[in-house]
């Protein structure tokens, strides 16, 4: 377990509520993430993990709650266009379903955020993009379209796309679900290295090994609330809540 130097809070959510129709998916969630932290969110299917990440990036508008993101401080009900754009500029999202641009090649998928979003000169953007693609082992697929890639390849392009824009915060939604164990290990290395360089990361994952090895804080969610949180050794070694224990038990038995 590593401890990175902590400066101050990078990302803080207070009392997030989100309903879809009558269904309350997030029921008052609080999270605070320090700069350089790797926070892993665990929880059963449908517990609201993806919705939470989407709210941070304003892809979903939370009904209630406040957000503090670097210098930006706002209320979800009031957030202005400017705030939203600022948050998005400083963060990147790796989608559970990859979400690649269907009409762009692998390379263009990665350079898009650089050239258009951040006005990086084209040549430099391509270099950065290729470096990011190399990190995930895909530099031989630059000219392919997403529809010509295997599941794991698409997922890795999604990761490379997020890395390339060098954001302050990366939100990962199950970034290794389609990857074979070899690649999971590689992505894990990449994430660790990013953290060392000061990038803050929130990772939703079902891979316990991944969680154990990479997180410096683990949050366990169920049914729209945070059941328990703490350093991984506490959560995995000595969970306090019955629900957490139950969830972990089944895994530990199997692994």
């Amino acid at each position, binding site marked *: 377990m590593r401890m990175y130097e902590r400066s101050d809070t990078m990302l803080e959510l207070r009392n997030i509520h989100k309903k879809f129709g009558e269904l309350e998916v997030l029921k008052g969630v609080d999270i605070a993430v320090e700069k350089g932290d790797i926070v892993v969110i665990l929880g059963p299917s449908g517990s609201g993990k993806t919705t939470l990440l989407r709210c941070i990036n304003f892809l979903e508008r939370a009904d209630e709650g406040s957000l503090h993101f670097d210098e930006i401080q706002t209320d979800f009900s009031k957030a202005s266009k400017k705030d939203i754009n600022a948050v998005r500029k400083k963060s990147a999202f790796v989608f559970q379903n990859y979400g690649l*641009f*269907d009409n762009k090649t692998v390379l263009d998928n990665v350079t898009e955020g650089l050239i258009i979003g951040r006005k990086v000169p084209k040549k430099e953007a391509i270099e950065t993009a290729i470096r990011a693609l190399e990190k995930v082992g895909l530099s031989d697929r630059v000219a392919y379209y997403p529809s010509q890639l295997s599941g794991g390849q698409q997922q890795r392009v999604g990761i490379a796309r997020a890395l390339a824009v060098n954001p302050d915060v990366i939100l990962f939604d199950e970034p290794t679900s389609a990857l074979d164990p070899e690649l999971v290990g590689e992505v894990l290395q990449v994430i660790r290295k990013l953290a060392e360089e000061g990038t803050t990361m929130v990772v939703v994952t079902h891979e316990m090994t991944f969680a154990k090895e990479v997180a410096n804080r683990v949050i366990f969610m169920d049914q729209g609330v945070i059941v328990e949180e703490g350093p991984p050794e506490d959560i995995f070694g000595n969970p306090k809540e019955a629900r957490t224990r139950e969830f972990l038990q089944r895994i530990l038995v199997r692994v």
Partner: protein
Amino acid sequence: MNRPFDITYIWKSVPEILSGLGVTLQFLIGTIVIGGILGFLATWARLSGPKWLRAIVHSYIWIIRCTPSIVMMFLVFYGLPELLLGVFDIDINSWNRLYFVIIALSLLFSAPCSEIMRSAYLAVAKVQREAALSIGLTEAQAFRRIVLPQALVSALPNLGNSFILLMKEGALAYTIGIVDIMGKGQLIIARNFGGYSIETYIALAAIYWLLTLAIEKAFKLAEDKLSAGKQPLRAA
């Protein structure tokens, strides 16, 4: 059948018909540009404008789609100058009639055009826009770079339909005395007291078909270019 047919007349009528080409192209291009912009603004307003604007735009599209083109032509040709004169004290009666044709056609074109754009926009998967936003593109950039090119793929065939229909709207121009290629053909036939009408119409049809083929070719190129990366719906 005892129908006289003089094949050489087809050739003979071509030069005069072609002298109307300039008019056809002018109102076609003018309408596509102005009507296209109007349609685009209407789409934008309907999809992301404030509620009151959406209601207004919706009614606008609704009414325009109900309006027969000849009625629109007369509304613009007679109503608009009155309106501008009465309200703004601007006299446009001396305008070139072609402008009135372009205005009438632009209004008529804007409504279906906006519906084409709306349906195409809605057909692009939500996640495409979201992904673009998440890497720091603004809404406008996400739209222009990611959503629009994909939406165009499905909009193009419908736009093609509209452009081709528009090109043939010469009859409308003819009602206020603007003579495009169709009008030229009719003048020729009238001068011949109906004689050689089949020959003249064959020449007309051939010219229209050639223009259509050119439009189709351009659309095909655009479609091929924009649908890069798209997997066609083909059963294995």
